[in-house]
């Protein structure tokens, strides 16, 4: 052990980490530690309660609903986004004038949330544009925000915002596959499907990894839009973990929040470890 430590220090590379680690410790780890501590005490009066909070947590219907919805949301939006963006990127890769499309696709990222929200309201509320179009075509209006359809509105919003960016990520990955490889495939008479399965996908694994992590990160950001459109208590199907946390905050339920946060952290940790393991294995 000592020898290892010595050799690390000798390499002097730890200096590169130092500023970052210091800052991260203070501004990120310290609050996190506080959260962990809070998960074992009552919210305001600060009495020690052991694992009571955790027990309460797992019996809490609201929490379970939120977890279910969040998992469901991630489970849908990630594959949809990845699949759709991949398809689009393949199509784009054949095109000569990619530039214009790329610029257009990136736009949604630049739009501020409040604006996006207003636009969604204009489209999706009961009296909104989509419904009035449906009416004109003789179909029934759909109460988007008040029914299970709300969930899909959320998915749509997420895909709309992140599609362009994800497409570009894929595209860059695709375009970087060396031409010689492509030539070889063509010469061998590979058809479209084989091309995708045998050549593209395997070489895109690193891209896939980055995209997955980033898309996962962005799936959390959909909360603000959901909140601004539908408020603190949206339709059941849209009720995410962050709604719950937000409401707990307003009601001083800091103990439950802390316990919930710790659980999330553990889940994330396990998830990343799993991903990393799968990664290394495939390599």
């Amino acid at each position, binding site marked *: 052990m000592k020898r290892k430590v010595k050799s*690390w220090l000798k*390499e*002097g*590379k*730890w200096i*590169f*980490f130092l*500023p*970052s*680690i210091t*800052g*991260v410790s*203070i*501004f*990120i*780890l*310290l*609050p*996190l530690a*506080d*959260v962990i501590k*809070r998960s074992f005490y009552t919210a305001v009066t600060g009495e020690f309660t052991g694992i009571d909070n955790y027990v309460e947590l797992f019996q809490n219907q609201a929490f379970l609903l939120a977890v279910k919805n969040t998992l469901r949301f991630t489970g849908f939006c990630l594959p949809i986004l990845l699949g759709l963006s991949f398809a*689009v990127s393949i*199509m784009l890769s054949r095109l000569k004038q990619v530039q214009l*499309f*790329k*610029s*257009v696709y990136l*736009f949604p*990222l630049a*739009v501020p949330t*409040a*604006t996006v929200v*207003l636009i969604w309201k*204009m489209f999706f509320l009961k*009296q*909104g*544009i989509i419904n*009035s179009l449906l*009416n004109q075509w003789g179909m029934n209006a759909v109460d988007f925000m008040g029914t299970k359809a709300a969930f899909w509105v959320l998915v749509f919003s997420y895909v*709309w915002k992140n*599609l362009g960016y994800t497409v*570009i990520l894929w595209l860059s990955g695709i*375009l*970087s596959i060396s031409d010689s490889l492509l030539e070889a495939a063509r010469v061998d008479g590979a058809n479209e499907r084989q091309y995708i399965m045998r050549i593209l996908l395997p070489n*895109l*694994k*690193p891209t896939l990894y980055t995209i997955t992590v980033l898309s996962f*990160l962005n799936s*959390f950001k959909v*909360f*603000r839009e959901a909140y601004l459109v539908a408020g603190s208590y949206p339709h059941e199907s849209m009720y995410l973990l*962050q709604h719950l*946390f937000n409401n707990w*905050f307003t009601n001083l339920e*800091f103990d439950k*929040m802390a316990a919930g*946060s710790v659980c999330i*952290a553990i889940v994330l940790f396990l998830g990343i470890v799993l991903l*990393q393991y799968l990664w290394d294995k495939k390599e």
Partner: protein
Amino acid sequence: MGKALRNILLGFLACIIILPIIMVIFASLKSNYELARSLAPILSDTGGMIHWYIFPGYPTIQHFRKLLLETPQFFIVFWNSVKIVFFILAGQLVIAMPAAWGFARMKSRAARLLFMLYIILMLMPFQVTMLSSYLVLNKMHIINTHLAVILPAVFSTFPVFLIYRGFTNIPISIIEAAKVDGAGEFRIFIKIGIPMASSGIISAFVLGFLEYWNLVEQPLAFLKEKRLWPLSLYLPEIDLAQAGMAFAASVVTLLPAVFVFIMGQDYLEKGIIASAIKE
């Protein structure tokens, strides 16, 4: 897939994506009266359906004029945003780049573990640590100053993750060659690492800019006084009376972001290419 079909599909997709933005831009040119009539069914309860025409019937720049020339608060919030984003990005430059380099160069178990920790921290939603962060920042007496927003963001692990990819793509051979020439780690970092990963770095900053330009939760929680607020908090609650100004403000908020990524787009792509090549 037929070329025509493909082009049509792509074009259609582009339209869907850009439609909302076009609507916002045109909406900002509509007069208050038009907006009120169109939006009333949505924003208040008067029954009836929305009537929305894409193009303004009587285009007007009154909103922009009001916003830019008659609202001094707008400039305060605008420059607040600029200040906050500038310092965050500058700080990240100094903090995150070296850290990313370190991760790229050290493959030890400890480093990999630390990196995983960084990724996990990156994924934590703000709500989770909101209260605790407030308490920590409060103890440091920086609540209600811009530092409360800038400092935690400077140490965000997100740019580390992105820039890391840029660095890992530098062929080892080049680095080894430099070492043979007698260069120390730091020199390699400055002379070789940064230049070669520049596109990756810039792409990280473009994304960072977009993120922090639209930041809402942190300023809301940590900044008490209106005079400190960034642009993202200023977009007024859009109600009938202010709809026009809100749209105009949206367009103005959009512009810098668009500006930044048009400038950085080339780099964005190159950076992404680079990050995807080698892993």
